[in-house]
């Protein structure tokens, strides 16, 4: 299992629960997840916290099927079948990776509008790890 300790997880809760990104005060680009130095202008570490809308479009995706799931997602795959993992281009610019929920895997398309919402990602050490997943947002983005 890709072990993420509770303290490590805890430090990234603003990103995992409500997509808090860093807007570079020099070039104006939004870094998500936050970086030490802006990955766009490579020249500034002066940021303003911004909450991303969670809205975006599927940039690309793959389906994780039988036997392909990492151990922390194996039970989910067994219970619900194969699941899509997408890279979503958010309206604010950043491309982020996340599972897609509330969708038939056959219906996922590049370019489909989606929205992030809070879901259970997996449970480790008895602690539920919450975070965002993308769900279809008809008429969105």
């Amino acid at each position: 299992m890709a072990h993420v300790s509770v303290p490590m997880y805890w430090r990234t809760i603003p990103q995992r629960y409500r997509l808090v990104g860093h807007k570079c005060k020099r070039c104006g680009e939004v870094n998500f997840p936050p970086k030490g130095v802006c990955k766009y202008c490579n020249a500034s570490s002066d940021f303003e916290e911004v909450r991303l809308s969670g809205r975006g479009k599927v940039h690309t995706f793959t389906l994780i099927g039988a036997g392909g799931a990492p151990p922390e997602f194996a039970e989910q795959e067994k219970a619900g079948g194969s699941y899509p993992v997408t890279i979503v281009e958010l309206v604010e610019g950043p491309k982020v990776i996340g599972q897609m929920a509330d969708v038939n895997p056959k219906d996922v398309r590049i370019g489909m509008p989606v929205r992030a919402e809070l879901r259970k990602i997996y449970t480790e050490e008895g602690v539920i790890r919450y975070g965002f997943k993308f769900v279809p947002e008809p008429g969105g983005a």
Partner: protein
Amino acid sequence: MPVGISGYAAYVPRLRIKREEYAKAWGSFAAAGVAEKSVMGYDEDVLTMAAKAAGRALDSSGVPRASITRFALASTSPPYREKLLSGTVLVGLGVPNEAFSSDHTSSTRAGTEALVAGFEHLGSNAAGKALVAVADAPAASMWDPIEHALGAGAAAFVLAADSLLAEFEGHASYASEHAGERFRPPEEDRIQDLGVRKFSESSFILNTTRAATALLTKLGRKPEEYAHVAIQQPDARAPSSVAAKLGFTDAQLAAGLVAPYLGDLGAASAPLALAAAFDVAKVGDRILVVSYGSGAGSDALSFKVVADRKTPWSVKAEAERRENIDYVQYLKIKGAIE
């Protein structure tokens, strides 16, 4: 100064199972009047449902998250037996950490209890804003017929003293001692019921009619002055007997009757029934809400609709977003196969 509701929203998870699936698996279906019910996805729990409904309620009210001073969360089926539950939702929403948050649990009455707590906060903080989120997904053993009715859903409300769509007119409660119906010992995560039907029914009717009668008396109202009555729905038939005893008609019950297509929503039953009534209510309509929690207690709340402002996330729209599953899929998603 009047206080009331300035925004609301429903959230219903998208999976459904029909009564026919139970009939195929078990030979019968024990939930009276329930045609199908809602089921959470594998990656959902009452906290994720509450976050979804509450975010929508805030969006529908236009109240900024930063102005929330009180957050009340209710559910009988939290993912932890000990741990602050409301913190997860509060942080997920971006509601201020300084808002006084509370968890209301252990009774299907918890939803109205959270609403009353929200209104009490406004009573002493005129400039305050309260967010109330109620989400539930009760669980029982698959071998137990009480499992058949159990659905899942959430409703959330923004409580304030301005920009109201409905005024809160008052509440009354009734608590008593009744044991043996719907309870959970400390070592159990599934509800139990001794199945003494007459006893459960009499407790349900006694507590709900006492709370409702007390409120009607306090407000000097008659049942015919209400356009809608939203009563706790352990199944789709139970509210009828209470309504009849109080002098309400089935027509007054109709708008708030959500159990036929969502099942027993536990603590979220009366709140979702209220949301469904708001969805169709006209300005000037009065709505009576009556919850019930086994053991036993009931809250009655009275609202008057003062503005024609509907949520984009109505109960009906949520109910229409759906995908059917069969009984084996249901068992897998519920983690019921050991």
